């Protein structure tokens, strides 16, 4: 080939995804995320002048002391910022794992909870609440994380046949385990007392009000690592969508890819859910919306889903806590209320999936 010196420009008629495009679009989405974040930090049930909120934020990042009363600083730095950060992380985590599950299971209906991870986390949390372990500082997140880990292992065990992961078997195992755990959850609800019931139901609806920096420090490196691991295989996710045999003959180690994606996405979901309960819709709508706008190539889909998911969940949480102040709407209600119609709009203007 004599064309090694040609630049990609000559091939721009092909309109394929290049690194430059990924970076540009990511930067654009990143900018939106930053704007949403800043906006959210200025909003809350107590009025703090936006310029003061921003200056408090900047000063704390840059390590300066200065403007803002103690009260304002507490509100901004101890309440709003950790909440927004955690919502962003969870939004990104759920969106990326949703996209991965859709690729792994080759099913557009897949979301992060389809394989029972969320039900396992819920059972773990409920057991902790009923046993009074919710008292320990990390009792609840730890118990729900353990619950989801166990579920991941159980589903994995049943989803394998002859040492290979079969997406449909996995899906079936996941759905059955999920249903069984839901029945268990209902049993627990039926024997719970009033106060426990309230706590459980509220956890199930998803809640960011107890966000703190400890939680963020815990899950951020974890999510980052999982994301990088999954992103390194982004091209291979494209291949596996055509079918495993197809991917195999193109040189992909399909079993390893399935294992990595299953574990990576499940653990991302488990971490997210343990921190804040079940928040639905994000993992399903965001990947689909991103795909509708930017295409199915995972090299762009994964980072774009992360950024859009983060913005979406931050915005939803902010709306939830400011719309009917002082009453807080559960964030899951907002994601459904806004996510649903938006997604339907997308469905009507573009096509999601032509056949299943």
């Amino acid at each position, binding site marked *: 080939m004599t064309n090694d010196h040609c630049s990609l420009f000559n091939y721009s008629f092909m309109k394929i995804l290049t690194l430059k495009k990924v970076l540009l679009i990511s930067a654009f989405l990143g900018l939106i995320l930053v704007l949403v974040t800043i906006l959210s930090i200025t909003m*809350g*049930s*107590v009025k703090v002048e936006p310029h003061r909120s921003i200056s408090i934020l900047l000063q704390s990042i840059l390590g300066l002391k200065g403007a803002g009363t103690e*009260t304002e600083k*507490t*509100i901004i730095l*101890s*309440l*709003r910022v950790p909440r927004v950060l955690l919502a962003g992380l969870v939004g990104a985590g759920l969106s990326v794992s949703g996209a991965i599950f859709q690729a792994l299971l080759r099913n557009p209906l897949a979301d992060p909870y389809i394989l029972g991870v969320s039900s396992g986390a819920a059972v773990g949390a409920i057991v902790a609440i009923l046993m009074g372990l*919710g*008292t320990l*500082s990390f009792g*609840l997140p730890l118990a729900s994380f353990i619950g989801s880990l166990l579920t991941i292992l159980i589903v994995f065990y049943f989803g394998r046949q002859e040492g290979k992961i079969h997406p449909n078997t996995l899906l079936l195992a996941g759905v059955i385990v999920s249903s069984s755990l839901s029945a268990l959850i209902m049993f627990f609800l039926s024997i719970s*007392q*009033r*106060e426990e019931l*309230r*706590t459980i139901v*509220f956890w199930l609806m998803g*809640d960011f*009000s*107890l966000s*703190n920096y400890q939680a963020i420090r815990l899950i951020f490196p974890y999510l980052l690592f999982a994301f990088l691991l999954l992103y390194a295989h982004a091209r291979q996710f494209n291949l596996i969508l055509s079918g495993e045999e197809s991917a195999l003959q193109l040189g992909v180690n399909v079993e390893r890819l399935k294992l990595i994606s299953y574990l990576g996405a499940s653990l991302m979901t488990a971490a997210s859910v343990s921190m804040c309960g079940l928040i639905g819709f994000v993992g399903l709508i965001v990947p689909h919306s991103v795909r509708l706008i930017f295409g199915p190539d995972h090299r762009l889909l994964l980072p774009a889903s992360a950024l859009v998911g983060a913005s979406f969940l931050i915005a939803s949480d902010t709306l939830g806590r400011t719309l009917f*102040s*002082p*009453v*807080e709407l559960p964030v899951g209600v907002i994601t459904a209320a806004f996510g649903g119609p938006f997604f339907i709009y997308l469905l009507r203007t573009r096509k999601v999936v032509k056949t299943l």
Partner: protein
Amino acid sequence: MNTFNFIQAAISHNLKDPHSKALEPDGLSPLLAIATQSSGARGLIFLFVLLTFVLFHVSVSYSASKTFKDEVGREVVVLFPPKKIVSLAPNITEILFSLGLDQEIVGVSIHCNFPEKVQSKVRVGSYISLDFEKIVSLKPDLIIATGAGNTRDMVERLERLGFPTYVIFPKNVEDVIRSVGHLSQLVGREKEGVEIIQEMKRRRERVVERTQGLPRPRVFLQIGEAPVVTVGKNSFADDLIRLAGGDNVAGNEKEMYPRFGMEEILKRSPEVILISSMNPGGNYQKALQEWSRWKTIPAVKNGRIHLIDSDLIDRPSPRIIEGLEEMARLLHPERFKR
């Protein structure tokens, strides 16, 4: 202590002999200087000492904190007496108002509805969801929570934000009386607290006396419609029923709010049915109608079905005694004429 020094120095400075050379603006030297002067100064010394003594105590009690142990065993350090208090539950709000506080109460929960004055208060959230921002902006000296409703996570969060939080956890009438005592100490209204406690005890004794020796009717207290939920061994209402001279048919159930099927109720054959209602004035016909199918129950047959205000029998506040009296009236009408 700098304030103290300054006051002392200022006083000494003003009391000094303008012609004396031994003038130093610090510490005790002015005192010594005066003490060594003529004996006419001794009277001044006495006054001076008295003044500083008084001032010392006043400044100390305005800037010192007190440590309390709350009802779940936590140590709470509060600026005493607290001048800005947030209540996270309706019973706490009632107790605080009954102790004579009003201005000091800067925030209440959305469920708080008594007394009338509470309408104007700022709301800071519900049992399951606190508006932390609001609380932070109110800058309270003290937050009072209940173990039956607010979660431990919430309390820890409040502590981490720097707000001393005192948790009460009364489980029966005697506990409520104790809680009133604890809170009265906490907010510096011990005298009012003692009065309330005495009143509560007096009225309780009255009820117990009047019903002594009377046969205890079997009582079923319904607190939920679908499913039917009643009150078990460790609940308030159970305590009330017993004190009011009744026999709670669910009194042996370990669960605080057990669910009963109709079969179970039929089996236990209550003689009086009390229905806890948010709206004791209305709904009576509806309640009657629903129970009228089960004519084998003595309570239904004899028309002894009554509505009772839930705020009175389920809220651990001083008004629980009213609930007790109301219940006694319903269980033993012959002894408690209106």
